[in-house]
């Protein structure tokens, strides 16, 4: 597949803005994967001065950490592209601002998303600041999302590949960074990206996409968590309070989950519908569609808006995702307090867990989102 023109990648307003910074320096946050590699290639192809910077977030003494291999890939790609490249150590920042929070949330029975926090605290905050101090006009990444200009204000939009769109992970970044950020892949599908990378003979064009949380790698989540959190055995009870089994720690389980319960018996499979931190009980029901697994509404906090606050008048009708890749859900967002918002869904949501992020959209525009802090009691729905 032929390399696209800059007009095919960005909206006319953005192209115009970029024309004012012709040939400017752009730092590409490179992971060693195909997306960021192609991002660097495209920007170079369009005449910018590109620098590849690898972000090291995790001490590599773990056998599961692929940082050393990934950096080698960054090196190969940048050498082929003949662009300078560096590695930046953000392990302390990551530990203090992402990982400690992640563990803390888990301890409290929540289900946090460290990739969202990594974007808002590290990539698009600390890394971003460092990158701009390299006399760069923009930071670019290989995210599948789009920055669009409206009335001179940069907005975050979904990437065109609905299967890959990563705006969900970006909702929590500071909106002010958006006009210095570029997502050159947002207008393309993953298949197109692979085809372009292959055609351009990028060394990582065949590299598998990384899955899961970066610091956990390909190992089992439970095994990873158990190295940081002590097991805390407790009862597994059904909706009538009958003890049906034993769990090793509430944090190994999340709402709606089926796997790893170790419960058998005849009948439909068991699913987690609640976690009681006080009694250390894991509550389960039988059947994927059991009503106790569904929530009609929930409460969020830590709202981060990517659009001007005065452009929204609560209650706001929009769509929401409570997890990555979920289909859009119609909802209304009502303001309850300073930083408390109630999200009422048209259709009850399955598997709502404290700590998960809810991200709001109007069409392709990402409005922002927040973190679930409360869900109704499954039994009373209050």
């Amino acid at each position, binding site marked *: 597949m032929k390399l696209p023109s800059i007009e095919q990648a960005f909206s006319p307003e953005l192209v115009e803005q970029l024309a004012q910074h012709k040939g400017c320096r752009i730092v590409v946050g490179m992971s060693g994967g195909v997306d960021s590699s192609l991002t660097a290639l495209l920007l170079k192809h369009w005449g910018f001065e590109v*620098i590849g*910077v*690898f972000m*090291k977030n995790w*001490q*590599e003494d773990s056998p599961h950490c692929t*940082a*050393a291999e*990934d*950096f080698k890939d*960054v*090196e190969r790609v940048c050498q082929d592209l003949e662009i*300078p490249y*560096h*590695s*930046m*150590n953000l*392990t*302390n920042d990551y530990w203090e601002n992402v990982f400690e929070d992640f563990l803390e949330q888990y301890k409290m029975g929540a289900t946090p998303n460290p990739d969202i926090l990594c974007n808002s605290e590290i990539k698009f905050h600390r890394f971003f600041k*460092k*990158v701009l*101090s*390299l*006399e760069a006009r923009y930071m670019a990444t290989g995210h599948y999302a789009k920055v669009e200009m409206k009335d001179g204000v940069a907005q975050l939009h979904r990437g065109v590949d609905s299967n890959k769109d990563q705006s969900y992970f970006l909702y929590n970044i500071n909106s002010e960074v958006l006009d210095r950020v570029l997502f050159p892949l947002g207008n393309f599908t993953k298949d197109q990206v692979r085809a372009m990378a292959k055609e351009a003979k990028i060394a990582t064009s065949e590299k598998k996409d990384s899955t899961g949380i970066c610091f956990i790698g390909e190992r089992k989540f439970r095994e990873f968590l158990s190295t940081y959190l002590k097991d805390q055995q407790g009862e597994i009870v059904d909706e009538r309070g009958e003890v049906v089994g034993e769990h090793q720690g509430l944090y190994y389980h999340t709402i709606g989950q089926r796997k790893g319960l170790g419960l058998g018996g005849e009948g439909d499979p068991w699913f987690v519908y609640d976690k009681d931190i006080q009694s250390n009980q894991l509550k389960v029901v039988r059947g994927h569609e059991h009503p106790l697994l569904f929530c009609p509404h929930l409460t969020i906090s830590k709202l981060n808006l990517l659009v001007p606050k005065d452009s929204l008048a609560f209650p706001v009708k929009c769509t929401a995702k409570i997890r990555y890749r979920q289909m859009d859900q119609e909802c209304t967002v009502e303001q309850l307090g300073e930083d408390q918002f109630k999200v009422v869904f048209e259709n009850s949501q399955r598997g709502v867990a404290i700590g998960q992020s809810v991200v709001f959209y109007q069409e392709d525009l990402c409005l922002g989102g927040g973190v679930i802090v409360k869900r109704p009691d499954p039994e009373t729905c209050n």
Partner: protein
Amino acid sequence: MSETPPLCYFDANASYPLLGELRKYGDFAFGSKLIHANPSANYQIAKQNRKIMEQGRRLFLEALKVSECDFKVCYTSSATEAINQVISSFCRQNSKASLCCSMIDHPCVLCSAKSWVSEGQQIVMLPIENCQYAIEQLQGIEDKTQAILFCLQAANNESGIVNDLGPLVTHIRSHYPNAQILVDACQAFGKLPFDYFHDFVADVDYLAMSAHKIGALAGTGVLLSNKNLNLLPLIYGGSQENCLRAGTHNIHGIVTLVEAMRLWVENGDQYRAIIDHLRTDMKEALSAVEGISLEFEDCPKRLSNSFMLHVGPCVDELFMLLDMAGICTSIGSACSSGSGQPSRVLMAYGFDERRSGECLRVSLHHMNTVEEIDFLVTKLKDFFNK
């Protein structure tokens, strides 16, 4: 350049003549002499190479003022190999012995020592206090008469601190009768006058140094060893170096090493005087840069060429900007994912983890210029002014 070697050379199975442009490396430093010949062969040009190697050995012994009756000089591929060889040889001949290292050691000491722990050897760490070895505080050796290999560093690559090895070696000799002493001289060689070594070298057992640290091609090291000890080979399979180090000699590297050694012997005082001057200029210029502070400046014994700049959490960006301007410096200890990580060496000198990851190392050579220093300082000022 002609493809035809100037000699009627029919020993391609010993060493193939260098090809094309590579030939100029073969003629490097010694005019028209062809040095690609395998030093183990028996024709004139091979013997010529052996002669250069022997001259090199003598140069080392003379510079260090030790006798060939007491010490032998062995060429290795690196100081890392030399140090591994000493540790391996010691451990193979002394079961349940102690290896005494310190946190300022190069990984070739620490990793090599660690690899012997599973074989029953113990590691004891020589404490560092006030930037010097503190042997009085050494713990973990109950029986001072046991076999101990002391691994001592002459000068540290990161801090530039020169260890006062004279009194330390005397102390070890008087308190640890069965100790063997290995000195890692990589950073000190050349950068310090040879007098520094005269204080203690006759009383140590091994000394390792490296060609690329003194301006010769990388890929060669030297191991000086006490003839009364039975040094075992690390690599087997040939009679090179009196069977101490098998494998065809890196003759091109060795030739450059010998030449560099000769230059340091003849001109070292001059090189060091230039570095001293550059240091004064650099220190003065750096003191005018807001945002940095100089570490280790109060330590009395340091390599004149070494600066450790505490620059704060922006160290990565600063390093990159300097690099993009064509200025080569160093951060932390390099790791395989390319970034610097907090230096355990600086931590051994008492830095906390954060501070040890916020430092930039600048080390001078005698061919640096005042203009280069001005350029660096201008870039630093630009960075911190922003």
